[in-house]
């Protein structure tokens, strides 16, 4: 290490990270080129990249990527609106919290994918079913986080609100929600992850257009490069959405620190 001492840390970090990634890809290449793993199961990095480039330029990847992202965002936004509204209603009253929290905790511990069979038998295998399941599954993290954020409002702020004779609606807008913002954002990040997962599952089960059904078809047709390219795209969606929200979080909650 002593030879690197003169290089500042913020330069070294990314360089070493990239070196690590290069080693990972090189290993991946060696494993596939050496025939250690069958090509039907693991496509080489080159073949995956080719499939990705071809799929994006001439194939259906761009449309499928857009379909999955839109599905995820639609469900997530709907769920967030419902969750913040309901969470504020529940969070504002200690009585409502006492009555509803156990039910919410139970509903949350239910794997969201387990309601898919019910959704199918209620509305069939359409896009509405997928959207409904995404909303149902991704509502819980934000909802519980909002309730949590309201429960954690400093008691003295409640006193202040009383002295100022704030109405309930004013309390929500002026004290409750601003206080709950960090909790809500953390919940929304979790919700977005859930929304992506449920979008993929929904597409796989219903055959709706999107990356979920695309990778399922690629696997069934033994087209490994396409399968890995699809998985990489899904990873990219996860990466971008998670980091995007982290940046928003840092921006919005900067005043706190």
């Amino acid at each position, binding site marked *: 290490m002593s030879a690197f001492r003169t290089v500042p840390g913020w330069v*070294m*970090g*990314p360089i*070493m*990270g990239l*070196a*690590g*990634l290069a*080693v*990972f890809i090189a290993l991946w290449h060696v494993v596939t080129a050496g025939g250690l793993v069958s090509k*039907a*199961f693991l496509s080489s990095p080159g073949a995956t990249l080719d499939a990705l480039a071809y799929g994006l330029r001439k194939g259906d990847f761009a449309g499928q990527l857009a379909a999955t992202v839109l599905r995820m965002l639609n469900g997530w936004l709907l769920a967030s609106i419902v969750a913040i509204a309901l969470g504020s209603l529940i969070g504002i009253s200690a009585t409502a919290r*006492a*009555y*509803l*929290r*156990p*039910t919410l*905790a*139970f*509903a*949350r*511990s*239910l*794997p*969201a*994918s*387990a309601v*898919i*069979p*019910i959704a*199918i*038998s*209620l509305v069939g295998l359409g896009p509405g079913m997928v959207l409904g399941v995404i909303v149902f599954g991704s509502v819980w993290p934000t909802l519980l986080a909002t309730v949590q954020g309201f429960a954690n409002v400093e008691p003295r702020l409640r006193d202040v609100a009383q002295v100022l004779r704030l109405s309930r609606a004013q309390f929500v807008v002026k004290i409750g929600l601003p206080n709950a913002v960090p909790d809500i954002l953390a919940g929304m990040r979790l919700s977005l*992850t859930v929304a*992506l*997962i449920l979008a*993929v*599952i929904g597409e*796989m*089960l219903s055959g709706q257009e999107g*990356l*979920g059904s695309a*990778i*399922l078809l*690629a*696997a*069934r047709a*033994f087209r*490994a490069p396409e*399968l*890995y390219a699809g*998985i*990489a795209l*899904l*990873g990219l*969606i*996860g*990466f971008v959405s*998670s980091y995007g929200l982290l940046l928003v979080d840092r921006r919005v909650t900067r005043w706190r620190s």
Partner: protein
Amino acid sequence: MTRWRGIVVPLALLALAEVAFRTGGGTSDSLAPPSRAIAALWAVLTDGSLIVGTAQTLGTMLAGLALGGLGGLAAGIALGFSDLLRRFTFLTIEMLRPIPSVALLPLSLLVFGFGHRMEIAVIAFATFWPSLILTQSAVVQIEPRLIEVARMLRFTRLQIAWKIVLPAAAPRLMTALRLAAGLALVVAVTAEIVSNPQGLGHDLMIAQETLRPERMFAVLFWVGLLGWGKNAALLALERWLFACRGEVDTSIAT
């Protein structure tokens, strides 16, 4: 005093569903009143079919959790100790970690076919990352003087890991376990619903496909109960183990 309040809402909802169903005609291929769901739950409990599904789901869940959790634990300890290794791997980890575990279902099915192994592999992938990240941060936060003492005593690396790191990081590791266990159950049921013909998830799909809604609701309720019970049990264990230390972090619920 406050305990009974939590049960009021679910009971009221169930009663409402029962009344709505009875007054609204009574037969349906997609819905069933709570009374029939309870009867169906009793039926699948007594004829043993629910036990078989539960054993399959919990078995694969535990196997996947053991694989992914212990793998993540080992990797997390290694990364927690070595700054160099941490910097070297962080980009690769950040690229692999956001891949939704369900995206690996088709791949796992291609490689392993139907059965326990495809499900275990996906669960292991899903639980590896939180285990790795939480272990790593737990190790980094260990009081450095403890490590210095161990070095003075000329402990080997394995001894340091066993005698210093694991006990010192135990409360945080317990939280990681609770998180990973919740994830493992969700992924197990999801894998069974999407592709793997076994376990509770498959029972749910079969009940739906054969138009037996009462059975579907019974299994769904059972799955919820399993998830809730597992979480409550792990929380209780955590409180019991670390009550004296007063550092149980209950804010992360699964």
